[in-house]
């Protein structure tokens, strides 16, 4: 029953994206050419990566507002490493980025797990702290394209089987997360913790530790995206991806991931991100000022949650009254 509802919700979103593309195609057929769509996907890849991490966190009843700051800090660190030691090979850079991101995510997770500090407080706090550290490290300076080594910049653009590496990273992540969420005990635990934390405790799941892992996963993805972002745009400064955490949350909410936890799928997160990606890429094509982007994603969030709330009103009756209040 739940599964059917979920699949239909994703089907509706998929339909909405197709309608959107069809509308754009009536006036600008070139937009739906395969090469352009591949470009849109590539452009949306960082959002997809972050949305996957955010999805895992939201599923456990938490939220991670520090992802964009994590991304920016990791990006700055690897860019500065690259400037200081241009010879460091890309795999090492990627490893450093992932490790650093993981560390920052784990820090969030520890505060939530061991001190039971509300997730929104923790990540609002670390968001400003991580952002501030970038300023301390860089002294407010930019790392520009000409300072980065060619190999550092080339990695996400390298073509492989017709698609850039950046797109492949997103595709591999989507598949890996699909397996993680549907085929592993951690994936089931994540759903259980979000669906009903009290029941999860009685089934032997450590709620706090599961949330810790969710944050760590989200942090790792943010770190990876940090390197990809900085090398793709070939610039690093304090404010990169400023406010992007809200776009990431928006992608999840639009993708039908319930903010109260326990409900949502990898495909939903992917489609939510693609929906925003198509809009953002289409705006300049249909000659609407990019200043509209913020208001449109805000409106999309509100419409999506209102829609999702209507859809979930048909859920089964609550048998355990106390379980409902505990939620």
């Amino acid at each position, binding site marked *: 029953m739940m599964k059917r509802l979920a699949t239909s919700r994703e089907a509706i979103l998929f339909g909405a994206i197709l309608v959107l593309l069809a509308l754009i195609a009536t006036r600008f057929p070139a937009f739906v050419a395969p090469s352009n769509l591949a470009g849109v996907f590539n452009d949306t890849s960082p959002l997809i990566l972050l949305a996957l991490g955010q999805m895992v966190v939201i599923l456990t009843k938490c939220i991670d507002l520090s992802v964009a700051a994590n991304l920016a800090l990791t990006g700055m660190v690897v860019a500065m490493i690259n400037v200081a030691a241009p010879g460091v090979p890309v795999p090492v850079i990627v490893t450093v980025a992932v490790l650093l991101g993981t560390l920052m995510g784990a820090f969030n997770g520890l505060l939530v797990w061991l*001190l*039971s500090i509300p997730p929104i407080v923790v990540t609002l706090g670390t968001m400003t702290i991580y952002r501030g550290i970038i300023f*301390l490290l860089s002294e407010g300076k930019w790392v520009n394209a000409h300072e980065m080594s060619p190999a550092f910049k080339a990695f996400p653009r390298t073509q492989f089987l017709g698609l850039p590496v950046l797109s492949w990273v997103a595709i591999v992540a989507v598949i890996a997360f699909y397996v993680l969420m549907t085929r592993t005990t951690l994936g089931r635990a994540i759903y259980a913790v979000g669906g009903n934390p009290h029941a999860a405790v009685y089934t032997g799941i450590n709620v706090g530790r599961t949330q810790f892992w969710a944050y760590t996963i989200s942090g790792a993805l943010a770190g990876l995206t940090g390197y990809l972002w900085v090398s793709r745009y070939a610039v690093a400064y304090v404010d990169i991806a400023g406010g992007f955490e809200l776009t990431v949350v928006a992608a999840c909410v639009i993708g039908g991931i319930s903010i109260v936890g326990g409900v949502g799928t990898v495909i939903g997160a992917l489609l939510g991100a693609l929906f925003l990606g198509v809009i953002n890429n289409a705006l300049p094509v249909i000659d609407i000022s990019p200043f509209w982007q913020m*208001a449109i*994603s805000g409106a999309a969030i509100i419409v999506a949650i209102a829609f999702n709330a209507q859809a979930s009103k048909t859920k089964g009756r609550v048998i355990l009254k106390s379980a409902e209040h505990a939620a």
Partner: protein
Amino acid sequence: MNSTSHFVPDRLQSPLARRLKSWETLLLGVAVAIFIANSFASPYFLNAWNLSDATFNFTEKAMIAFAMALLIISGEIDLSVASIIALASTAMGAAVQLGVGTPGLVAIGLGVGLAAGAFNGFLVTRLGLPSIVVTIGTMSLFRGIAFIVLGDQAYRGYPESFAYFGQGYVWWVLSFELVLFAVLAVIYGIVLHKTNFGRAIYAIGNNPTGAVFSGIRVQRVKFTLFLLTGLMSGIAAICLTSRLGSTRPSIAVGWELEVVTMVVLGGVSILGGSGSIPGVVIAAFVMGLVTFGLGLLNVPGIVMSIFIGAMLIAVIALPRLWTMWRRH
């Protein structure tokens, strides 16, 4: 999440001991300590006019924080407050271009604030949507509208009489904003601590279902609180716009974080149900003094935000670490 059972003392503490150990007293001690540290750190600190200037660091945010405190105590949150400022300021700026005078501008500022608050309240109370997502959405929406209207432009040319709200002084060093802040603090203190409405807010925050069965109109109270938060954001927009004398779409960006920090630092539980207005007032002074003191020492704004972020986490983490340490 908390699997540990509640700690039940053998006998209750005396009222005096309880008051001395309260969050507000602790915070007041911190405020005094920062004040003394600042006056040693910089020779420019202990000057009536400098101190008066320092209050502008927090008065506008604190006005919103009062309403936000009530909202958070009731178990909801509004992350769109800074965007409401942007929207209200943009509306006032647009009105100036049409030649609207100061009274009209004030009405527009308050009206936009109320309308934005009503929109949030409607989505949360009528459609039953979680306030955190709703206000993340309206945060983008409201500021997005400001960006659509203004783009990379700015509104200027506010009438001279409009400057009073952000730059005027009532008496000697007492600015209009500081007086307004004090008046609002008293009003909110009375509303929260001395009225049925205030009791209802605590009841809702502690147990929404219980509140319904006690005959409290939960949704109506929550709607009123969203309306109040919008109104206070409108007032803050008037003061800030008047002080800056111009409107850009990026006005007051990131303030929602500072307002929430102020509320949490003031001892309001982010989970709802507890907190006080005196706590928020002292927290406003603490944050204002820290920002001003660091400013005198030439610490850049973004580094100050590290302090504020760390303070937000530390005020919750330290008491918990302390109790954990005592139990072992």
